[in-house]
């Protein structure tokens, strides 16, 4: 399924580390490894969900793809009509142009619109900055995107505080769409909203995606939301990807022990269902001092000796649906698979 799809983002060994400085001379004493050696491919037109608990680096990962955070290392290749270019090496002008390709919807719709400005101004500015000089043209574009999110054009004259949370988030989505992006990075777009409004916004986003053939990078911690939205899901733990799978495959047969624990935490609306919750012991280790070997080993119920020493690599577990996992439990199987593939390609 994934082979015939066009790749839009190709992330290779991306690292985003924040230095920790100490003393008057700002000596670097360590790093917060928010995103640590992440490799990933994003296909055109899909919704890629990114899940993980707070502080696992999923938001930072999204911001790094937008270059709102500077990458410490690695590459982020973006597909410019078939030609992949590394956005981490872009200069100012190239970056400015890239801003039109990828846009972002932020978590907090309450502070995402400038409270001093009318919606009209907030909507006009990006278009002016990106060189749409004709006012009538700008207004036509503004009305077009507002129509997509079902907001009346005469609401443009209002101030942000006159809108509800759901309306504001819809406005934010509309504003991001103004520059006709190809990719929308959604950083927990509904977690600040009421549950009833969440569904409304999510459905709207799905409709828009269908209409514009957008690619979504959907960052969230709400597993049911991610399941509803995503085609593929990436599970992150402490700045690393532990599992990548199709949405269905991930929920049907989670492989990584962390994913299993995560999924068992989804509440089921059925009183007869007494599914046992798998509660992880301990806290998430600090991203400054990560455990040796597999970052998850000190909380893993299946921890083996090798886990404490060697960091597992992300490898394909099921070639049929591209299910990938980074865990020593599957190392043998994966190795066999790789050997088979190598043999097949030789033959």
């Amino acid at each position, binding site marked *: 399924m994934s082979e015939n799809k066009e790749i839009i983002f190709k992330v290779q060994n991306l690292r985003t580390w924040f230095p920790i400085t100490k003393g008057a001379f700002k000596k670097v004493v360590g790093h917060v490894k928010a995103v640590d050696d992440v490799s990933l491919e994003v296909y055109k037109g899909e919704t890629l969900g990114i899940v993980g608990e707070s502080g696992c680096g999923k938001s930072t990962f999204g911001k790094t793809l*937008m270059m*709102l955070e500077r990458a410490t290392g690695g590459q982020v290749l973006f597909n410019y009509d078939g030609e992949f270019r590394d956005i981490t090496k872009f200069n100012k002008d190239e*970056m*400015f142009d890239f*801003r039109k390709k990828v*846009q*972002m919807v*932020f*978590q*907090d719709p309450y*502070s*995402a*619109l*400038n*409270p*001093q*400005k*009318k919606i*009209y101004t*907030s909507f006009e*500015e*990006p278009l002016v*900055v*990106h060189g749409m000089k004709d*006012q*009538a043209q700008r*207004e*036509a574009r503004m*009305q077009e995107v507002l129509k997509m999110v079902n907001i009346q*054009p*005469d609401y*443009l*004259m*209002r101030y942000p505080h006159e809108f509800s949370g759901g309306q504001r988030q819809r406005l*934010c989505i509309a*504003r991001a769409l103004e*520059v006709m992006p190809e990719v929308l990075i959604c950083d927990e777009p509904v977690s600040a909203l009421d549950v009833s409004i969440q569904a409304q916004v999510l459905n709207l986003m799905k409709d828009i995606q269908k209409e514009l053939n957008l690619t979504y990078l959907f960052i969230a911690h709400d597993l049911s939301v991610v399941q509803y939205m995503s085609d593929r899901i990436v599970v992150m733990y402490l700045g690393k990807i532990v599992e990548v799978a199709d949405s269905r495959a991930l929920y049907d047969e989670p492989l990584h022990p962390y994913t299993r624990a995560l999924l068992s935490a989804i509440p089921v609306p059925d009183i007869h269902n007494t599914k046992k919750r798998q509660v992880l012991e301990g806290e998430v280790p600090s991203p400054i001092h990560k455990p040796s070997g597999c970052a998850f080993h000190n909380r893993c119920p299946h921890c083996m000796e090798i886990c404490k020493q060697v960091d597992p690599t992300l490898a394909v577990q099921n070639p049929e649906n591209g299910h990938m996992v980074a865990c020593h439990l599957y190392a043998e199987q994966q190795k066999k698979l790789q050997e088979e593939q190598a043999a097949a390609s030789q033959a």
Partner: protein
Amino acid sequence: MSETKTLSIKEQNKSAASSLMKKNIRKFLRNKLAVFGLVVIVIMTVACVAGMILGVDYSTPNPTIMRAAPDAAHIFGTDTIGRDLFARVLYGGCYSIFIGVFCAVLSSVVGAILGAIAGYFGRWVDAVIVRISEIFLAFPQLVLVMMLVAILNKRSMGNMLFVFVVTGWMTTFRMVRNEFMSLKGETYVKVCEAFGMSRANVMFKQILPNVMTPIIVSTTTNVAYFILQEAALSFIGLGVADSTPTWGNILNAAKSIQVVQNQWWIWVFPGLAISLFVLAINFFGDGLRDVLDAKQQ
């Protein structure tokens, strides 16, 4: 088609804005003290400017009527060398008010720009500007004035304005810097960055409007502060040259104990003018803060 529609949007836009304005004006009018302040400010300013335009005679000494008590011809009396005090208070008002307003506005502009830069860029830029502001804060204003007078060997209006602006921008700077520090973390700033807007655009067009209210309010109260500063410096003889009648310079005559004891009108009227104006500005500033504070709306 869309043009007619959008025109109507813009029209409605204007009416909404003006209704907000009306609401604010009504709110301001309900504050009696603030209205009183505004009325006093307007009356005094108009009177002073009118006096200057009409060219009342403030400078010709008249030896025959030195230290005359107030009467019909000289309603505020005359000073120690027989000049009409009413004319001098009017003229002095122009200078004092000008000094207050000019210095307050200019120091706010300087403070706001530096504060915006320090708060937005943070890191070493912030550290450097904050240190500079602390050096200025730690340096006594009086000494700076005396140094300037000594170096330039003359007391002029320009010197005074310069010293006031140089020593007066720090409060606005600190306020703006702190506001910027917290506001730059707001999501709308990130959104603007995500759209690739320039830093200057983000700083001055996005964040600054959100800091405008405290800047305006502190500017009004600074006007009062600078008028008092001018009066104090002129009183001790370090302010504007004697030939220029500012309120402080007129008060300067009251340094002698004899005048204080016997010619009350020489110091009461300019003193009253200063107190009344400063009080009025403070009332007005308070009222303005209540109206403009967005958090209360």
